[in-house]
């Protein structure tokens, strides 16, 4: 099966500029996640979608970050304006159901290769 696709792989922007990332999950995966991974730390959940609805965006800095999954398939994450501290790898993941669960079993998440953002 095809994996989770993300683009671009790398992005370098100046602070106060805007940037957008794209993610196409595995076909049939209802749940989509955006994680932020700062160097030296574990991935931190920014937002979780169930189909085209937001389930959890409690850790999304909403003054500058936004995300959408309009048709319940692919998703975009935007930062506007970017700050130096936004430099990180942005990971997209998908799963059959919330938390990776489906039919009483947990299949885990499938991650994309990530987008490495550098804000200068």
């Amino acid at each position: 099966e095809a994996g989770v696709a993300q683009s671009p792989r790398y992005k370098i922007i100046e602070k106060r500029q805007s940037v957008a990332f794209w993610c196409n999950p595995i076909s049939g995966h209802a749940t989509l996640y955006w994680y932020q991974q700062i160097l030296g730390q574990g991935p931190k959940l920014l937002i979780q979608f169930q189909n085209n609805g937001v389930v959890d965006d409690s850790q999304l800095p909403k003054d500058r970050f936004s995300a959408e999954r309009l048709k319940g398939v692919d998703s975009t994450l935007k930062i506007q304006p970017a700050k130096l501290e936004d430099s990180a790898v942005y990971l997209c993941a998908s799963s059959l159901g919330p938390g990776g669960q489906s039919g009483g079993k947990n299949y885990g998440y499938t991650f994309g290769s990530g987008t490495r953002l550098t804000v200068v």
Partner: protein
Amino acid sequence: AQRVTQPEKLLSVFKGAPVELKCNYSYSGSPELFWYVQYSRQRLQLLLRHISRESIKGFTADLNKGETSFHLKKPFAQEEDSAMYYCALFPNSGGSNYKLTFGKGTLLTVNP
């Protein structure tokens, strides 16, 4: 709220030596625990989950509810095991914290 702690940022062993990557968690309910691995220039991927009681690439992990630990072990490390390892917790009780929480990771280096 749930929390995952990986006390070692770096772990270096020689090929053929046993390896144990530590993971401790705090969660009031009964969680599901996972180990994810990220090899150099590859994406983060699921290594194993406690509920399956499986052994993947020679690695095993046992959930110790008394010690709230989920350490990852392998009796004989190989050079290809060098990677970043993340312990992750999923809360089965749901609610507002119904999400996978990762530790900060341990970078394992297996030397020849």
